[in-house]
């Protein structure tokens, strides 16, 4: 069974005042990819998730969480 994943990417990005295009440029992906991850339409690969974790200085679990888990 597929577990729906929610991401805090939009919040983390907004906290730093970055645009989707800026984040995409740093991560080496397209803006559409960032948008699809933020809207929950696409789950990133593990290497991309690690890249994001490193960039935001958080763990992967802080950025992506199963949909049933309440955000702290």
């Amino acid at each position, binding site marked *: 069974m597929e577990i729906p994943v929610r991401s805090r990417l939009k919040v983390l990005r907004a906290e730093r005042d970055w645009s989707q295009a800026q984040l995409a440029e*740093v991560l080496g992906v*397209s803006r*559409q990819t960032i948008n699809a991850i933020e809207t929950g339409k696409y789950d990133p690969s593990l290497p991309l998730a690690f890249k994001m974790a490193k960039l935001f200085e958080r763990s992967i679990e802080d950025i992506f969480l199963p949909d049933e888990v309440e955000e702290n």
Partner: protein
Amino acid sequence: MWLSSMLYIRRKAKMNPKEQRSIGNDKIRTVIMTAITGGAFGLLYGYGFEISLWLGVLIGALFGAAVGFRISKRPPRMEYPMAIFHRIMMAATFLLLTSFGYSYLLDQNLNQTQQYWAAALPLLGWSILVVSIGLAIASLDEMQRRIQTEAIAIGFAGTAIFVGGYALFQFAGLPEVNVGLVLLAMSGFWLAGKLWTLWRYR
């Protein structure tokens, strides 16, 4: 923070006049490449429909330049370096020229063995085009690769259904399926698949 400074450096690099010139050159290169591809297309069709070759090349080149101008003004939504697009255009030009060579050689009273060699000529063009498209897909990011993979899968399944379904009608009396029609159906299903997956991940 290192990210802010990195983005600042990148933004500054974009403001560099040398970079600006490079973007301008990229646009001119796009128009030239599409004009050459259009010209090759016009040459093939001019020969096929027995109209003036020069007229075919001219109309094709003008149409290609117009398409290239439009693309350079507003690049496609899916971002990729224009160098990849230029490489695909070069491969397409090579395919069109080899196809023209094939058509021309078949009209030259060649013996059977020479005709087989002439028939193999466009296959070289097809191979180069397939490799250049494969390299372009490999250079996309992970979600764009998924979009392309799903579009190709839909294109493959759609073509299989089309060919299989047509075979049934063929048994009922329809004429034999044209290879050009199969290629057209394949392109159509691929485009439909791509639009569908783009809409899904929009």
